[in-house]
């Protein structure tokens, strides 16, 4: 018993000492700001940017906190709700911005922007389409986008340009094989390229099945991005201009039915796939193309040219141009105690220099001048998709394409619910109409609770 006492006494002392150390701490001289961001998304680049920034601003220490995207919403949310001021810089998704702006959790950046000279931050350089979608709410700017995942489409250029395949396609469908401009064409191509082992692809016999399309049909946020690409290109919306909920309109049902029917041209793992799996499928020579897909994955998906002999990857706007569009932004929390310092870092990250570094490191910037720069586009390994992306963003700006969904104060919550309902409809767990009707009811309830 004595030994036990002594041991527990020792542990107790140790604990007290450790706790004392923790409590006493010691105020560092530099101002500390914390940036909450998505784990795994170019955290190396983030660390480099922080190093550069801290060299220029020796009185500010930036701590980056990596949080898995699947729980980023609630982890940032709980700190914002609790007004803890724990995170100075908040990474926002397009759908969270209206919610958090409405709740008064994000600090409007307009004053800061007005005071910042053009050389440091050129707001006009940021894609206007993205500013509208990802940054502003009711006329004020709440976040600066630093990373866009706007969708286009990836496809196996070598398959599309193969003479044998082209001839066979024309014979079967009566029109030439080309990058699809409509979802019906997209479907035909997917059907065309779905082959069983023993059949031929590009003249060679297959020993494992090949599929026309890779789909992210798992119960993750990516499924609704794929579905919304179809929905929007047919003129449908989740919430229309008048503010009515139209997610169960006939167009929406048609879009979901179309999506569901595409599943038979996708690998069986589609029902639990997110974007990682689709990229892996492309690299393993399993699919011919994607649905609306995040162009920021370009640096990863181009590796198919290494893993599959003869493969050439191509990018194009998705049929209808209006695939899912959005960006991750960084905003300043209302309860941050160091807003000035946070702004210094925010404009540093959004500056052209940092964004160029980001681009060359494999990131996808939102600055149009960087996207359109031919020298940067020439970096095939990381920036080969920039030309297509710039075209897509220009198209959105030219045609003034907006989606009222991104201005709804419950957009984030709708987004969470969407993935469940779309997955149910796509998997056949519930009839398409029922899934969308239930979704409408939920959205109505959520909206009714907004004050």
């Amino acid at each position: 018993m004595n030994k036990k006492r002594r041991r527990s006494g020792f542990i107790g002392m140790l604990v007290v000492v450790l706790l004392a150390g923790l409590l006493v701490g010691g105020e560092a001289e530099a101002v500390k700001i914390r940036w909450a961001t998505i784990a795994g998304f170019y955290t190396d680049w983030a660390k480099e940017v922080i190093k550069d920034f801290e060299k220029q601003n020796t009185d500010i220490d930036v701590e980056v906190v990596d949080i898995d995207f699947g729980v980023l919403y609630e982890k940032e949310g709980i700190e914002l709700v609790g007004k803890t001021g724990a995170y100075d810089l908040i990474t926002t998704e397009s759908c969270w911005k209206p919610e958090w702006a409405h709740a008064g959790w994000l600090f409007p950046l307009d004053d800061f922007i007005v005071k910042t000279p053009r050389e440091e931050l050129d707001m006009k350089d940021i894609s206007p389409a993205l500013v509208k979608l990802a940054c502003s709410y009711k006329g004020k700017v709440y976040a600066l986008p630093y990373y866009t995942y706007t969708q286009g489409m990836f496809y196996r250029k070598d398959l599309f340009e193969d003479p044998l395949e082209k001839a066979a396609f024309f014979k079967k469908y009566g029109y030439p094989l080309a990058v699809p401009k409509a979802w019906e064409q997209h479907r035909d191509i997917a059907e065309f390229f779905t082959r069983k082992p023993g059949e031929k692809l590009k003249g060679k016999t297959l020993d494992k099945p090949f599929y026309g399309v890779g789909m992210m049909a798992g119960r993750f946020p990516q499924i609704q991005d794929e579905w919304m690409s179809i929905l929007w290109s047919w003129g449908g919306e989740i919430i229309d201009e008048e503010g009515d909920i139209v997610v169960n309109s006939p167009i929406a049902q048609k879009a979901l039915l179309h999506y569901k029917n595409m599943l038979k041209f996708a690998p069986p793992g589609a029902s639990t796939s997110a974007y990682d799996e689709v990229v892996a499928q492309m690299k393993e020579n399993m699919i011919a193309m994607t649905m609306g897909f995040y162009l920021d994955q370009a640096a990863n998906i181009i590796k198919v040219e290494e893993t599959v002999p003869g493969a050439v990857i191509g990018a194009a706007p998705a049929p209808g141009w209006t695939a899912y569009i959005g960006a991750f932004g960084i905003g300043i929390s209302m309860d941050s105690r160091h807003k000035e310092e946070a702004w210094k870092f925010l404009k540093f990250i959004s500056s052209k220099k940092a964004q160029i570094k980001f681009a060359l490191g494999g990131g996808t910037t939102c600055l149009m001048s960087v996207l359109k720069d031919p020298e940067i586009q020439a970096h095939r390994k990381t920036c080969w998709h920039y030309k297509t992306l710039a075209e897509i963003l220009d198209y959105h700006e030219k045609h003034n394409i907006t989606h009222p969904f991104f201005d709804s104060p419950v957009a984030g919550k709708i987004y969470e619910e969407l993935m469940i309902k779309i997955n149910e409809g796509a998997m056949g767990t519930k009839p398409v109409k029922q899934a969308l009707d239930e979704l409408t009811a939920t959205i109505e309830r959520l909206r009714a609770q907004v004050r």
Partner: protein
Amino acid sequence: MKRENKISKFTEKYFPYILEAPALIIIFILALFPLFYALRMALHETILTNPGSHPFAGLNNFREALNKDPMVWYSLKNTAIFTVSAVSLEMVLGCAIAFLLNRKIKFQGLVRGLLLLPMACAPIAVGLVWRYMYHPDFGVFNFFCSALGLAERNWLGDVSTAMLSLVVFDVWQWTPFIIFVVLAGLQALPGEPFEAAEVDGASRWQIFKTLTFPMLAPLLIFVLILRTIDALRFYDPIYALTRGGPGTTTETITWYLYKIGFKFFNMGYASSIAFIFLYAVIILSAVLVAVLKSFSLEEGG
């Protein structure tokens, strides 16, 4: 001298209260405060993304939960399906294995030690490992399936197998609990009635039916109560394995509460559901305890 007497008299009289005070104070403050806070949230419209104060809402949250939200009943159904499946499988398997182990074998200690291991594992940690084992392409379960000639499946993504996958996990982790308790119970049974029955020529089944089972019944029911109450709080493995999916087929009440509270930030509504659930569980336990008391001759849990 006098002061010492006074102090020792004081401590004599209030000795038990002095002993109990520290623990009870901590418990009362830290248990009752959240309970009352949650109750307060349930009685107000507490949606955390709405700026401003939270208006009083009376029993609105409770009414909405019971009358207007099919998901509440659906998730309760899922909870019931999970709990009943998992606990009954654990009871049956646990008893069977306990009977199997109730004999003199070498390496008793080793066997018991190994069977305890699943319970020692953090559910979230080992749950993620099971996610890997359930993986449709790289998981080892599908490997065993194809080796045995059975169909490979997408265990966690398929509506027909998702709940089963969760149940199998829980059975793996908690059957040892049943095994050890039943084993202890078996080893504590008095020997004479059994010897007498054998002398009388009763068959093994008869002995089991009239002696073993009735004598074990109070123990079994007690352990059933404990296991059920714990199974109702199942959360970590859902986080690791299915997150409520596919669709909402594995959304139990705990997961639904998480969604409402931390995705929709409607804490008032979530709290009201929690209280309704607590009420239901208390009633359920009271029923089970009454059953226990009717079986038991000595004091039960």
